[in-house]
């Protein structure tokens, strides 16, 4: 049977939930699914991987003497070595900062086709569906080549529980670091913060937030429901929050189950980044705002009144 490799992302010792939808996507093609685990103990994840239909766990240890926790160039070569050794021609990873670093490097090295940010993939036919033109259209892309690579948009494909027995393949791969590309330092982000590309709930603020300090209201509210905080371009350009929080055409494209837009008017560029959300809730004083007419539920009201009340309500519930 043909094999499909999936690059598993692990954060703080846990498999990110988004991996499971990606595994379901790989399983759909009726192939053997090889979970590639980089520099971590694969056995720790056996239970969850076997509950989702993985056939093999490939524990890749990179570097040998030149081991570094993260060097995308080195890790690219290690993954390619593993793909060659195991005859893996199709590879999936998440369209996350890690996937954005690895997949295009692997595709470039193999001169292989790659479609990023896929919302659906048909591995047999080599077809991928993704948003094009800033989320204003959905395109179907045909890939041809000896390999095929796909970046999967987190949280769009639902996980499918299937029981399997996974074999364990341990692959220490000696990949010296090239003098051309070195990792100097890794500065992790705030780990308490859920990343917007993977969050189930996003609460976002726009121009109406008025200041950096006011964003604390959103952070407090987000904390009570395990949400991530997003922002419109204006809020980012004003310097109230960092660029990583921007949702939209020139920011992140997100697909949470719920998107709560606070004081965001809803420009076409902002919608480009969040229109795939499961449910959109708008809180806005202006009932004429584009966000209000294009959402599922709206509250015509002042976010400075509604958001603290929501935080309070959710805090009470938690007790």
């Amino acid at each position, binding site marked *: 049977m043909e094999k499909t490799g999936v690059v598993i992302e692990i954060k703080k010792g846990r498999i990110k939930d988004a991996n499971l939808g990606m595994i379901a996507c790989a399983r759909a093609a009726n192939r053997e699914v090889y979970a590639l685990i980089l520099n971590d103990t694969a056995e720790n994840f056996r239970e969850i991987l076997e509950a989702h239909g993985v056939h093999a766990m490939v524990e890749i240890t990179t570097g040998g003497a030149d081991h570094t926790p993260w060097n995308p160039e080195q890790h690219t070569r290690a993954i390619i070595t593993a793909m060659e050794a195991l005859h893996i021609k199709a590879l999936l990873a998440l369209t*996350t*900062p890690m996937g*954005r*670093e690895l997949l*295009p*490097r692997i*595709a*470039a090295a193999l*001169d292989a*086709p*790659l*479609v990023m*940010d896929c919302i659906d993939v048909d591995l047999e036919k080599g077809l991928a569906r*993704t948003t*094009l*033109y*800033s*989320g204003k*259209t*959905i*395109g*179907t892309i*045909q890939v*041809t*080549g000896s390999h095929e690579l796909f*970046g999967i948009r987190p949280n769009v494909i639902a996980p499918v529980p299937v029981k399997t027995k996974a074999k364990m393949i341990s692959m220490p791969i000696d990949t010296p670091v090239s003098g*051309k*590309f*070195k990792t*100097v*330092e*890794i500065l992790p*982000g*705030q*780990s308490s*913060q*859920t*990343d917007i*590309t993977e969050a*189930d709930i996003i609460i976002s603020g726009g121009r109406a937030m008025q200041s950096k300090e006011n964003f604390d209201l959103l952070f407090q509210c987000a904390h009570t*429901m395990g949400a991530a905080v997003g922002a419109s371009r204006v809020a980012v350009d004003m310097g109230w929050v960092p*660029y*990583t929080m*921007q949702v939209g*055409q*020139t*920011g992140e494209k997100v697909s949470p*189950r*719920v998107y709560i837009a606070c004081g965001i008017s809803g420009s*076409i560029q902002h919608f480009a980044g969040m229109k795939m959300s499961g*449910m*959109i809730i708008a809180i806005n004083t202006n009932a004429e705002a584009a966000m209000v007419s294009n959402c*599922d*539920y*709206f*509250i015509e*009201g002042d976010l400075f009144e*509604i958001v603290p*009340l*929501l935080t309070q309500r959710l805090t009470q519930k938690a007790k």
Partner: protein
Amino acid sequence: MDMKIYVCVKHVPDSAANIAVKDGNTIDDKISFLLNPYDEHAVTEAAALKKHLGRGEVIAISLGTEDVEKTLRSAMAMGADRSILVKTDRQRDSIFTARALKAAIDQDGSPAIIFTGRESIDMEGMQTMFRLGAAFGFPVASNVIKFTPEKNSATVESQTEGGGKNIYHLSMPCVLGVGRGINTPSYPTFPDVVKARKKEVKTIDVKDLNITPSPSSMSVISLEPFAQERRAREITGTPAEQVQTLVNILRNEAKVLN
């Protein structure tokens, strides 16, 4: 020899434009096109590097139809000294684009560094810079939000999740895909625009580059508008009631609360 700083740019639909699908797999191009927003940052960074060094030449390069000249003029108004238009009749995939850009750059000179935006807002492929780097054998970093040039090398900060950063050290020449945080583009003044009109645009027909095609390809076989009609329902009542209804919706309908 003068230091050559190349900037790869793309001519893309205006982010505010409404996109209409034509012939099932392409778009109606009777809309306004402009310089890809991320590439504005790439041009700005290239111009800043030239200023920092006190020497060098910034060359903007793009693959596309004749209309792309407009975007090259914008890049020149923002600081590029001259430009190269590699002419093709249609949208090409990143596998071909990287080959064409490589061939055109090779014909023009020897790059000290190549800048581009971290992705184009039309195809959103996020990969041309890596393919270009592989073609040249240059190291690549993308999503770069800080660039510090050194003698024959560069230190860059690449953005990761939750506000994290990876700091990489690359030998030069290298290829950098820049993100929005790297700089604030200063939009051209009228005299900049006038000056840009007089700058050189060298046009090369892609056929004359004799590019060896790759056995791999990516092609858009169908395109459909993605317009979601949502039926907006108002949550009414006093603020306390509105919040209660909202919590009920989150818990019972969206099922995102425990």
